[in-house]
């Protein structure tokens, strides 16, 4: 326990906190309350008047089959993206840990994709897998796969998941490498002497000891898949074909800014906010406790 700092001046602590509070108020609480307010308004088709409708927008959104489809799409997309991004990153990190020569170069190269902007990453994958001009799409067709993400919803999903995970792998890789380095070498040696083969050592010693890192990345990746993948989806599929890759965030944008149904869009934002708060709270409350040890 560190001793509590006591300020003799009564106003100074508030002054010191003021900039942080101001930023939070202006950039979080104000827009959030605006969203909450707007989610209870309904505009006429020409945007000339609006009416306070209480929770009618929420009722409408939650009974909309398109919205429920979007929930489903988001779950599939997020779980797949987090799973792929984390497992591939872990595999690469474990491999990188074994590299003896030019380890630094290997790691630097691994980090590069993180510097690519989401929209550009999306375009990259779009071009590579474009059914008519993509070089890798050509390869897939040569393998006998009828590759057409513009018409096939599942293939479109695979494409956005691949693009979204690819971008996140670097970030996860960095943390896994750091996490692996933090595991004392003697533990691995003790396990080897204790008769555990390499595979067994990984699953019984390394993986459990990586749990704090894995948990942290799980939170970050879920939030990433939920919110930061708009650019990729927008560039690669635009939510299509049909609504096969329309995630919740993308639908908020579509309904609000493309279709200009502001009330519905705001209601969706509020639901999204509630989901994120709940998700983070659950993760920190129940998962974190099990993975931290001294």
């Amino acid at each position, binding site marked *: 326990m560190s001793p509590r700092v006591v300020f003799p001046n009564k106003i100074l602590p508030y002054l010191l906190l003021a900039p942080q509070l101001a930023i939070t108020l202006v950039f979080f609480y104000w827009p959030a309350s605006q969203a909450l307010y707007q989610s209870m308004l309904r505009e006429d088709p020409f945007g000339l008047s609006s009416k306070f409708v209480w929770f009618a927008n929420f009722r409408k959104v939650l009974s909309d089959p398109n919205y429920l489809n979007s929930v489903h799409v988001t779950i599939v997309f997020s779980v797949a993206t987090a799973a792929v991004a984390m497992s591939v990153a872990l595999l690469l990190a474990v491999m990188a840990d074994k590299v003896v020569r030019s380890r630094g170069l290997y790691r630097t190269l691994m980090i590069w994709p993180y510097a690519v902007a989401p929209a550009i990453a999306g375009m990259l994958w779009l071009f590579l897998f474009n059914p008519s001009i993509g070089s890798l799409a050509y390869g897939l067709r040569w393998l006998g796969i009828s590759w057409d993400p513009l018409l096939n919803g599942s293939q479109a999903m695979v494409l956005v998941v691949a693009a979204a995970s690819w971008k996140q792998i670097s970030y996860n890789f960095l943390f896994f490498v750091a996490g692996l380095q933090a595991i*004392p070498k*003697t533990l691995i040696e003790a396990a*080897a*002497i204790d008769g555990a083969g390499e595979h067994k050592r990984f699953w019984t010693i390394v993986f459990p*000891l990586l*749990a704090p890192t894995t948990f942290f990345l799980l939170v970050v990746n879920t939030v990433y898949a939920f919110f930061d993948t708009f650019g990729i989806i927008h560039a690669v599929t635009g939510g299509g074909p049909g609504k096969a890759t329309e995630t919740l965030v993308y639908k908020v944008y579509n309904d609000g800014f493309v279709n200009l149904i502001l009330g519905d869009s705001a209601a969706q934002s509020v639901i999204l906010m509630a989901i994120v708060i709940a998700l983070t709270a659950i993760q920190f409350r129940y998962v974190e406790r099990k993975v931290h*040890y001294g």
Partner: protein
Amino acid sequence: MATVDLKDVRKVYPGGVEAVKGVSIAIPDKALCVLVGPSGCGKSTLLRMIAGLETISAGSCAIDGKVVNAIGPTERDIAMVFQNYALYPHMKVYDNMAYGLRNRGTPKDEIDRRVRSTAKTLELEHLLERRPRELSGGQRQRVAMGRAIVRNPKVFLFDEPLSNLDAKLRGQMRVEIKNLQRSLGVTSVYVTHDQLEAMTLADVLVVMNAGLVEQSGAPLDIYEKPASTFVASFIGAPPMNLLPLRSGQFEGAVTLPAVPGNAATLGFRPEDCEVRVEAGGIAADGALRLLARVEGVEPVGAESFLYCQAAGGRIVVRVPGRTELQAGDQLPVFARREKLHFFGSDGKRV
């Protein structure tokens, strides 16, 4: 149960650094062999080569008569206690001890029986459900020992296991390790830089320096007949007094017994000195006699150490009990002929 034979073992690191430069040691069955030396002398590297954690660049390591150079640590049937204990932090004490047995496919009730009986021996029974972080340093040390014992291996390896404990606990654990090792009768190799630990634990003591064995043998033999100035100054606390000789002469000596012709250094232990305050007192025949000035006195209780300046260099003298001598006092120092050691110009005993 097992012997350990090292034959001309060498370790060369990729950078070209030779950490171990050809070491041959034969450890008999059930013996406790202590490797002692200053840091960087290659003792830990040697231990890790026996464990299979480092590859052997040249030479051979045989456990129980079987060369194990090409065998990994998993198949060598050894157990190791690490300096930082290396307990698995996410496992309970019970699971820490059971881990090695589980990996080897021991039946469940057999594991339970062995873990519990080992825990009983080490008085760990009440800690089995705890995690390592909930234990004190001494308890962690015991768990690390337990994890090694429970497997019933051919060889125990100890890598400075007591260096993280406080002095009192260290003394206690030293006795316990010795008793345990003797009662279990498992061949052991023990690495330490603490000469006291080395002296008290070892059946076979190996003093290492710069990747080579300086001397090996029974601890008291080494103490009484150090093979080189390095061993003389490393074994014993405070270390042996070493004074340079110039062509068989020693300027500071009032009387000097017959010196071997090629001796370059004269040595005698602080505890082999006698002090006669009244000058010209009893001077035993053939004893060394020199004059020294006290620079500092360290009373330890049962004995006192006098730090003195003699003509040839600094010396330490041990006197029993308390002393009235003070800094600045002049006194004659005697050492009997049979307690003198002579070393050649290469540092080797003559």
